[in-house]
């Protein structure tokens, strides 16, 4: 794996490094995780502290986090942020080291000895379970797995959800659930022009799913999906949207008093509720409100879901003693992602699932004191919600805090902090990634797709 070119690049890096140590006060920062928070933090630090030197380490051989492995394949425009990230990566003071995992290949303590600043940006990549009966029955899956499967996340290529039934129930109503619904309902000839993985395309082309429920515990006024995503569902070819009239009792009267974003999305729902359906459409999208799953039922495979019927009290869902059962052959829970602590020395709140911090400054364990030089940005610090824009603002804000701390002498440059020596790791550099990128694009073009993702880590490494 350590090719000659690889070593040369590292030699060049070391030379660069030695010239850079001469720059007085050149902050050395290590950013952990290459999703939007990692890249936007790098961008901001490099712009406002042009002398600083950044090493970005990433667990996977390839960059971009959820932009590559979360954002839906039929939303290529969202992935345009990759162009900005790539520009940052071309900065001579920036190194990408893929295939290095914090907590496995390198410990946080090691990083802290090697850098003036460490910014944890490793996101949230674990499921949140519901903790109810029957969750381990076959074909009760998580959105994280399903999304990872169609987007080519390594190790999920054999996930193979069973799509042979006609009905699917999605638990949760966020944009991720909408993504899953859309992928299940979109005509295959549209998906075939995206960078969706070959195996997922093949499985979806055989899918029998015709009805997709989107179940939320609260009402239409609390719906978590955003309006652009809803509008897209309403325009989906071959699919009609069916709302439940009873879910909307008293809602039209409230529209005028709502703030603009909530008002517009509610208007859109009510308009769609009253619209005539096209009988020629053979697929159905069925949002259902005021229901919480209480158990999954099935023997070899899930057969139905029991829901409590909820009412709202102070905006919260409260279960009544009434229940409803819906038949299904696939359940996908989409109630959010969760972060984990990847290194024992991280001050982590297991309950909240995030690193304990005050405005991005990580606090010491069992103390209210700031752990100087350690920061957290993105979903790992805020919790797993918000779009790329939200993450970007958070990363900018925390980078600004780092710069403030630096200018105020709270964090100092230590010339003994030399950064990791990439020669000690089988890591992937930016040049290596560009090779993988080229190979993926070429493979894609052969089959009229923008990209055919390489899923096996072994194969990625063999290309570089």
């Amino acid at each position, binding site marked *: 794996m350590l090719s000659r070119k690889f070593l040369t690049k590292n030699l060049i890096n070391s030379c660069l490094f030695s010239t850079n140590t001469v720059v007085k006060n050149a902050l050395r920062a290590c950013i952990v995780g290459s999703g939007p928070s990692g890249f936007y933090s790098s961008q901001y630090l490099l712009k406002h502290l042009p002398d600083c030197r950044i090493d970005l380490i990433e667990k996977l051989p390839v960059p971009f986090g959820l932009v590559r492995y979360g954002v839906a394949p039929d939303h290529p425009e969202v992935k*345009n942020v990759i162009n900005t990230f790539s520009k940052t990566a071309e900065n001579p003071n920036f190194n990408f080291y893929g295939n290095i995992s914090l907590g496995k290949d390198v410990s946080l303590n090691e990083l802290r000895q090697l850098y003036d600043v460490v910014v944890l940006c490793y996101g949230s990549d674990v499921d949140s379970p519901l903790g109810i009966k029957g969750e381990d029955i076959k074909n009760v899956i998580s959105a994280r797995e399903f999304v990872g499967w169609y987007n080519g996340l390594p190790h999920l290529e054999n996930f193979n959800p069973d799509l042979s039934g006609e009905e699917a129930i999605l638990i949760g109503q966020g944009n991720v659930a909408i993504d899953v619904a859309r992928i299940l309902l979109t005509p295959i000839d549209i998906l075939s022009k995206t960078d969706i993985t070959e195996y997922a395309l093949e499985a979806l082309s055989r899918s029998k799913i015709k009805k997709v429920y989107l179940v939320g515990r609260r009402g239409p006024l609390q719906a978590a999906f955003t309006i652009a995503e809803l509008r897209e569902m309403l325009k989906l070819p071959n699919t009609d949207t069916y709302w439940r009239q009873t879910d909307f009792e008293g809602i039209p009267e409230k529209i005028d008093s709502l703030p603009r974003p909530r008002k517009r999305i509610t208007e859109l729902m009510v308009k769609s509720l009253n619209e005539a359906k096209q009988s020629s459409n053979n697929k159905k999208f069925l949002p259902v409100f005021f229901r919480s799953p209480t158990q999954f039922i099935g023997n070899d495979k899930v057969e139905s879901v029991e829901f409590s019927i909820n009412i709202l009290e102070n905006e919260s869902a409260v279960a009544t003693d009434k229940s409803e059962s819906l038949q299904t052959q696939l359940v996908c829970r989409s109630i959010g992602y969760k972060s984990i602590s990847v290194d024992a020395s991280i001050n982590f709140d297991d309950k909240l699932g995030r690193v304990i911090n005050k405005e991005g400054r990580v606090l010491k364990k069992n103390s209210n004191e700031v752990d100087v030089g350690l920061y957290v940005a993105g979903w790992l610090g805020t919790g797993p919600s918000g779009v790329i824009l939200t993450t*970007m603002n958070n990363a900018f804000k925390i980078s600004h805090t780092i710069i403030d701390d630096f200018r105020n002498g709270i964090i100092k440059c230590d010339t003994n902090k030399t950064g990791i020596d990439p020669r000690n790791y089988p890591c992937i550099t930016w040049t290596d990634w560009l090779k993988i990128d080229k190979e993926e694009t070429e493979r894609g073009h052969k089959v009229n797709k923008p990209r055919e993702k390489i899923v096996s880590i072994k194969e990625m490494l063999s290309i570089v």
Partner: protein
Amino acid sequence: MLRIINSRVINNISKQIIRQMTVQPTRSLCSNVPKLQKEEVEVTFVRANGERITAKGKVGDSLLDVVVNNHIDFDGFGACEGTLTCSTCHLIFAKPDFDKLPDKPSDEELDMLDLAFDLTETSRLGCQICLSKDMNGLEVKVPATVNDARS
């Protein structure tokens, strides 16, 4: 699949492609502007901290084009490159200028604006506003993103 099939989005995308392919992209693609018009229009961007940046664009350019072509570095501006999927190109107009804008916002633009920080009654997305001759001297506010407000 393009999430939003909106003529202005397509305009922007084709403009980007043209920008990449040719050195001098002069022909305007904005539908409401006559062909081969090259007049320059001056626009002033006012940051939240009061800083004023005046730049020139050609008739038919979008306000995002003006920012990009003049290398104006507003952090994070135009993340989705004019494809109506991000709202980072949010700009605030003075009421009279807002009322004069020839194209009213599409549903898709309003959908994205709904996610913008500091949304106002006279907010628009810069990638959806094409310059016309009578916009010369236009002033727009760049809303306070977190960093602007503090620096």
